[in-house]
Every structure is written in structure tokens, then in C-alpha cells.
């Protein structure tokens, strides 16, 4: 058995490198997975990162204040480019969130055991990314204090939302997504919050974690319902995540604009979302596993698997590009073809080629095993993919709008400082939330890793299927 040599627990000898390094038991796992929460918060690196992220959040607040106080005229948007950085950022952030749900729900349903070490981490990313995403359409309404108009509340005006609009579908999709992700995340956290409560050394920590743990006592009668509830939430999250990005793509596909009005958009957007989301998880996981001392639970095997998914989804996205261009040419529609010709030769061609380089070319290195196992390389690739996917949304949105049917109406879009500050500010805000998460909550689902460790050490015998009599 692989479990004997090198003291590593492996599911199967043919299964590749181990999921957990070293000989672990429940006591050591409690110790080393919670250690980073008990570490003093004045660790230099964390404080430095937190200061930078906090500065970003402050800039976000400034940009939001300027936008609300003056109006969205401070943005570079114009007619014809009514959607620009705002919607680009919205789609980018929402897409980043989707990897979290994919890891936590879809890989759970497929019983991919390597998800256990990274699901908590990426679910947290989902929640923070959706918070950043939601800001943009909210501000883009121009009068965010009337945003509640979009919800079906009984107003004295008897004004109801117009449910045939994809933008209202978006409101429902994104708010449902946020709610369900939060519930799923919190439900998974309850046993670990109880672990923190009962492993804490100070009364204050015990009280605070105790409140959030809701009095969890690891009861077998609780686990009985809990397991079923968790499985069902995973089952519901799976079609939900597909529906959310599908509906985001409907914002474009339901319009009649060349470059947007295509049936390939829903699958193409979902693939792109997973692609960028995995890249973002990778960008954070590489430093986090190093600084939090989690290399024994987030192993090279996890990173390699993620790189394989980045390669696969990158290929799906490339196929999307190919088909889009082919159909534009094959349709024989001159307006449709012009949009794609203009993307490659027009004033925004730099962004277009950067997109192709980052999204089509870069992930191809992951065909090689040495590349999938090289930590510096995967970090660089993940950053490039994040950039590439942002460029993709910019290309889709701005190049389709800036040269529409009548040349007399053509115009250029240039971002203003407010546009750029808002975007960079959300990155700061996201980082702030994420650093707080890494400080106060176990970054790895401790009870799930213990269960995995138990399963790896005492594998259940394979089920023999008996056919015939």
C-alpha cells in the first residue's frame, strides 16, 4: 500500500501524489490547520499586505463617493459606449466567483476528494467576488439609492419590475447566488467554528467563535441531517452557478447588437468564468499555502489538478473565440463580420491581442508536466489569465459598442481616473476581505480534511458488483 512508504496517505497507488503529506491524525490536524488563526496578527507580511489592501479599499470608497456625489458622468462612458469598465468589471468579478462554487459543489458531487483542502478558500473568494461584482451595476444605475426599485416590493405606485428584461433576471440571479453561496459557506463553517471555540485559549475568542458556532457539539443526530443538507445545497449550487453566468451572458445575447447577439454566449461565458476563477484561486493559493503553513494539505497534486482544469477551460474559451469568428464570417452578415474585423484591426486591437495571448497561448504550457508542477510558472500564468479574461470582457463590451451601425455615431471610449480607481479599488476591497478571512477563519475545511484523512487511512473496500445469478 502506498500508505506504508514515505508515511504518506494515498487513496490509491495509481492515484498520483498524495493528498495529505506526512502522518496526520485528528490531533495534529487540529493543531496545524488552526495554527494560523492563533498566530499573532502582527506578522509583518500580513500587516503589510493588509495596509496595501486597506489603502485600495479607501480608494474605492473615494471613487464611489465621487461617482455618487457627481453622477456617472465622471466615468468615461458615452453614447454609443454606454457600458464600459463598469460592466466589464462586473462580469469579471462574477466569473471569478464561479470557481468557488465549482470547487465546492460540482467537485463535491463528483466525489473529487482533492477539493476538500481548497473548497473553504475558494468559497470565501466567491462571496467576496460577488460583493465586488454587485457594486458595479448598482453604481451604474446612476441613482443607487433607488436600487430597491429593482425588487418586486408592493409600492404605492404599483410599479412592478419588468420581468422580461435580462437586467432584472440578473438582479435575481446575482442576489440568489450571493445568498446561496453564503449559506453554503456558513453551513460548512459551523463545525470548524466549533473547533475554534473549543481549541481557543482565551475567553474572548471562545465567546466570539462560540456565538458563530451556534452551539455545535458534533452530535451524530446533527451530522445525520447536516450531511444530507450539505449534499442538497451542493446539488442546488451546481445548476445555480451555470444559470448565473448564463443569465449574465443573456444581458448581451438577448440584445440585437452584432458581436453580442449569439447563441454561443451562455456556454462560452460559463467556461470563461471557470477559467478566470481557477486562475484567481491559484493566484491566492500559491502565496497562502506558503505563508499559512498549509503545504501538507494543499499539495502539489492539488495545484496540478487545478492547472489541468485551467488548461481544459482555456481550450473551451479558445473554441468559443474560434466559433464566434467563424460564425461571423459564415453568417455573411456585414455588420456581424465588421465587429470581428474591427476587434482585430481597430483602435482597441492591442487589448484584443493581449486577450488572445493570455487566454489562448499562455495556458498551453500546462500540456507539460514540468509546467504544471512549477510553482513560479503557475503563479505567472494565473496572473496572465486574470488579465486576459478582463481583456476579453472589455473586448466584448467596448468593441461591440464603439462602432455601431452608423459611422456618424462612432466614438471612442477612454477610462477616466474614477473608472480606474473603482476597478483597482475593488481589487483592494477583495484583498482586504480575503486577508481578514485568512486571519480569523481556518482557510481549510478542518472537519472535512479529518474525514478525508480517516478515509485515506481506512479505505472502504471497493464495492463488487455482482451481475447475474
Amino acid at each position, binding site marked *: 500500500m502506498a500508505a506504508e512508504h514515505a508515511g504518506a496517505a494515498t487513496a490509491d497507488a495509481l492515484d498520483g501524489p498524495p493528498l495529505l503529506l506526512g502522518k496526520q491524525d*485528528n490531533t495534529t490536524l*487540529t493543531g496545524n490547520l488552526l495554527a494560523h488563526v492563533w498566530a499573532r496578527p502582527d506578522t509583518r507580511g500580513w500587516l503589510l499586505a493588509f495596509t496595501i489592501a486597506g489603502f485600495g479599499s479607501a480608494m474605492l470608497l473615494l471613487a464611489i463617493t465621487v461617482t455618487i456625489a457627481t453622477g456617472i458622468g465622471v466615468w468615461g462612458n458615452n453614447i454609443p459606449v454606454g457600458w464600459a469598465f463598469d460592466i466589464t468589471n462586473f462580469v469579471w468579478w462574477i466569473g471569478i466567483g464561479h470557481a468557488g462554487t465549482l470547487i465546492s459543489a460540482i467537485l463535491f458531487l463528483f466525489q473529487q476528494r482533492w477539493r476538500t483542502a481548497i473548497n473553504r478558500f475558494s468559497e470565501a473568494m466567491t462571496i467576496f467576488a460577488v460583493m465586488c461584482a454587485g457594486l458595479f451595476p448598482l453604481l451604474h444605475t446612476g441613482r443607487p439609492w433607488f436600487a430597491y426599485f429593482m425588487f418586486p416590493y408592493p409600492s404605492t405606485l404599483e410599479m412592478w419590475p419588468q420581468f422580461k428584461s435580462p437586467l432584472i433576471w440578473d438582479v435575481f440571479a446575482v442576489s440568489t447566488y450571493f445568498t446561496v453561496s453564503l449559506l453554503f459557506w456558513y453551513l460548512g463553517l459551523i463545525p470548524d467554528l466549533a473547533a475554534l471555540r473549543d481549541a481557543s485559549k482565551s475567553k474572548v475568542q471562545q465567546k466570539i467563535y462560540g456565538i458563530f458556532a451556534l452551539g455545535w457539539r458534533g452530535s451524530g443526530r446533527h451530522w*445525520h441531517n447536516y450531511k444530507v443538507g450539505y449534499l442538497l445545497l451542493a446539488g442546488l449550487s451546481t445548476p445555480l452557478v451555470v444559470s448565473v453566468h448564463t443569465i449574465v451572458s443573456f444581458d448581451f445575447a438577448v440584445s440585437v447588437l452584432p458581436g453580442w447577439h449569439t447563441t454561443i454566449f451562455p456556454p462560452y461565458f460559463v467556461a470563461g468564468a471557470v477559467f478566470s476563477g481557477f486562475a484567481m484561486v491559484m493566484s491566492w493559493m500559491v502565496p497562502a499555502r506558503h505563508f499559512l503553513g498549509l503545504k501538507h494539505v494543499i499539495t502539489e497534486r492539488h495545484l496540478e489538478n487545478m492547472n489541468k482544469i485551467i488548461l481544459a477551460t482555456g481550450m473551451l474559451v479558445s473554441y468559443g473565440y474560434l466559433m464566434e469568428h467563424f460564425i461571423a464570417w459564415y453568417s455573411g452578415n456585414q455588420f456581424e463580420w465588421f465587429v470581428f474585423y474591427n476587434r482585430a484591426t481597430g483602435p482597441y486591437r492591442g487589448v484584443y491581442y493581449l486577450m488572445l495571448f493570455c487566454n489562448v497561448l499562455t495556458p498551453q504550457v500546462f500540456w507539460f508536466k514540468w509546467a504544471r508542477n512549477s510553482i513560479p510558472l503557475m503563479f505567472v500564468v494565473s496572473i496572465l489569465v486574470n488579465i486576459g479574461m478582463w481583456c476579453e470582457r472589455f473586448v466584448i463590451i467596448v468593441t461591440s459598442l464603439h462602432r455601431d451601425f452608423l459611422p456618424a455615431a462612432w466614438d471612442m471610449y477612454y477610462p477616466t481616473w474614477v473608472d480606474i480607481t473603482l476597478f483597482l479599488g475593488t481589487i483592494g476591497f477583495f484583498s482586504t476581505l480575503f486577508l481578514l478571512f485568512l486571519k480569523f477563519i481556518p482557510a481549510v475545511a478542518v472537519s472535512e480534511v479529518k*474525514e478525508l484523512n480517516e478515509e485515506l487511512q481506512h479505505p472502504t473496500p471497493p464495492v463488487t458488483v455482482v451481475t447475474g445469478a
Partner: protein
Amino acid sequence: MEHDAAPVGRTYVLGQFPTGEALVDACYKVREKGFETIDTHSPYPLHGGDEALGLRRSRVPRIALAGGLTGMFGGYLMMVYMNAINWPLNVAGRPPHAPPSFIPITFETTVLLSSLSIFFGLLTLMRLPQPYHAVFENDAFRSAVNDGFWMSVALPPGSDGKDATSVLSQLGAKDVSVVKEDVA
């Protein structure tokens, strides 16, 4: 439901077992001795733990289905009422009641209500939040959510717990103790 909910009492006998398997085996034996109001406490779900406690199928799926159906019909009928009955609005010549356009939101409300009912249904079934419980009176029990495998036996009113204590001790449990709810 009463049968599967965590036993409610004021006094419990606690005992710690060395491994999860030992705890599961002990559950069968303790139940054979006639103690049905038992519960296990472990950092992760025990393999075979549901059968050992004699639990029936969870009611969570039915709660989820009820929530999902409410969300589905509620969401769709809400849109029909608002856009086709209460204030019909002609947008781009689409019919006021436009079934294909109502599907995305119907799907979202189905998922939303189903998820909310799973979450709050779970809390109700588990009777959480319940920050205080008699089992927390024993300080050693703090290992139950980290690395310990505990059994608790809820005692009927008036019992001193001697019988349950001796059964747990015979089965090899350590730290066997009687804990009482602090009613101060």
C-alpha cells in the same frame, strides 16, 4: 421526528472512546442494554454512525422539495400577477404573460427558496442555535469537535446515572462522568 432529534434532558452521562469505530460499536451495545436516548459526538461524521444510532431517513430532502416547489410556483405566479394581471405592460410587443421570459427568474426563486428552507430547516431540526448544553459542563468534552469521540446518554428524570455509567465503563470508555444542566 422526536425519535431522531437530539435527546433532550437535564442530565447526561458522558464517556470518551479511543476511535470512531469503537464509538460506533459501543452505540450498538449500549442500545442493546436498553438505552435509546444516546448520541455520539465527533469532529466529523462517523462511518456507519447513522445506523448505529438507529436513525431513520433524514427529513431534509422533503423540506428542500417543499421549499423548491414554493419558490417555483411562487416565483412564476408572482411574475404573472405583476406583469400580466395587476399592471400589464407592453414592452416591444411581447405578450404580458411571456412564459419563456419568465423561466430564468422562476429557476432562481426555486433555488433560493429551496436553499433557504434547507438551511433554516436544518437549524430547526438540529435545534440550533443552542449556545448552552449540559454536555459542555465537562471541560474534557471540548475535544469532541477536535479529536475526541464521545457518547452521551440522556438520563430520564430522577435517574442518578449509575447504570449508564457502569455500562459505558464496561465498554472501555474513559472520562465517564455525569453532567447536569446548570439551571442557576
